[in-house]
């Protein structure tokens, strides 16, 4: 429902905003807005857009990530995180050599080809960006049609603030 309601919203549609200048990282927000905590990407995109920060939404087409990996030296990704090692709502930031981040990235996309697969394919093709930073919130539920869980919702502003700080400091 989120994407239908906001289909024409210039701020978060992902392709209605101008690309960040090469000197700035590109921010890619992943996720399905209508599937519980997977909505953190779209929600974060919305919050960042309200701050005037350009974002790109990637919904269901992780192969498109490959184009951004090649085109931008620094890529910031926002996606739902599931480690099981932290309570839901825990905010993560991973930053480091793309190969190491790729090794960490989970393969839990409901589309079968998600962030983890895109990073691993990028590694095989030697097509990863110079720098990769991943933000996300430990998630609890990906139920169809559900809103984000309360712990994730409570961390959403912190997530957006952290991503904004990362973008502004580069």
């Amino acid at each position, binding site marked *: 429902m989120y*994407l*239908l309601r906001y*289909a*024409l919203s210039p701020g978060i*549609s*992902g*392709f*209605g905003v101008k690309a960040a200048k090469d000197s700035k990282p590109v921010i890619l927000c992943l996720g*399905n807005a*209508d*599937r519980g905590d997977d909505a953190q990407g779209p929600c974060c995109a919305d919050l960042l857009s309200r701050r005037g920060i350009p974002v790109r939404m990637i*919904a*269901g*087409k992780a*192969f*498109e990530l*490959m*184009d951004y990996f090649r085109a931008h030296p620094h890529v910031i990704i926002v996606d739902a995180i599931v480690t099981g090692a932290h309570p839901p709502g825990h905010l993560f930031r991973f930053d480091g050599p793309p190969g190491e981040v790729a090794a960490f990235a989970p393969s839990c*996309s*409901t*589309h*079968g*080809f998600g962030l983890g*697969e895109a990073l*691993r*394919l990028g590694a*095989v*093709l030697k097509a990863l960006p110079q720098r990769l930073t991943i933000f996300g919130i430990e998630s609890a539920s990906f139920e*169809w*049609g559900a809103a984000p869980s309360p712990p994730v919702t409570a961390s959403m502003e912190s997530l957006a603030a952290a991503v904004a700080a990362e973008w502004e400091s580069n």
Partner: protein
Amino acid sequence: MSRTATVSPAQGVTTIKVDCLARVEGEGALHVKVKSGKLQHVQLQIYEPPRLFEAFLRGRMAPEAVDITARICGICPIAYQMSAAHAIERAWGLTIHPQVRALRRLFYCGEWIESHALHVFCLHAPDFLGYQDVIEMAAAHKTEVEMALRLKKLGNELVRVLGGREIHPISACVGGFHKVPTKKEALSLVDELQWALQASEAAAKLVATFPFPEFNPAYEYVSLCHPDEYPLNDGRIVSNKGIDIDAADYEDTFLEQHVKHSNALHSVIRERGSYHVGPLARYNLNFEKLPDFVQLLARELNAEPPLYNPFKSILVRCFELMFACHEALRIIAEYEPPPEPHVEAAPRAGRGMAVTEAPRGSLYHRYETDAEGRIVSAKIVPPTSQNLKRIEDDLWQYLPQILDQPVEEITWRAEQAIRNYDPCISCATHFLRVYLDLE
């Protein structure tokens, strides 16, 4: 993709489960049961939640259907936009400008390029080359995977130029487009399309060397057929067994049936049964409308019609990639922006039906509107629901040929047979579990 096999000789039962199969789009499971060496049970269970699009279209202004139905699928939104626009234009008696018609074909070429490139190389080729997925394949076939990604990017760019953005484009509307590209914007695509045409030919030659299982069902193929064009947006609905109807008569010929094990309806030809839509159907019914050089290559590769082997659909997708690149180049060369991007729509009470050719096959839309232009009723029959019964029928016919193979091989081939159809069970989730019981 993960596979687990548990063998319980004491009970004489072997169960195989394949979880999270990445290369089928949608949420479903395949159940196969074999007893005493004979196939007992085949069910393609579709348990993805109902989408309810037809219901919530009711009461909306008809032109909104173009944008709303585009949300049904992230890979083939243009198909939904085109079938919706054409159906509403027929309901309201609108005639579009010839250049707008050409632009819609160009728009569709973009979708075919990106969808076929994805399926051929990233979803289906790993089956033939013995890899678990495209990542494993990329290590040994980097050039081919790079080519696929570049082709896919070109398809996306075509969609962006025509539709305003790559995913769920926003420019198409009833009567034409909200905005059309300039000649310069269209020409900017030419160099890459010329590369893509050559790349598609190379892909066809490579794919033709794949090992294809021997399997040739006597399909009833159904697709659009136009007197002068390889079909995209326009034509009559024909089959190789005598169907030749206008889209307005679709529901007199085809019937959607509910089956207990599937949340997706099964389509059949009334009083006949399953049928096959998609690249193989288009190809067999429209071969002579392909460009001469595509026909020539098909003959060189011993793949001219009649072609009934569904495993060779991957090769036909390569031929259609060649066609789409060639057609896009032709349209761009002849393109002059129309005087107006769209003709104004005058709402009225009406009923319109249209079929267009999505990458996966024929997509039917029917809308009835009231005098103010609100949708009174809507019906959408996507290509995958038209193929679901045919996929089950394929498995009933194909699996007995390979039951003497190891369980892993049977499972692999069953999945591959499903992927022949590039099923798009849903654009939102992608799970297929295969359960194979051998007693």
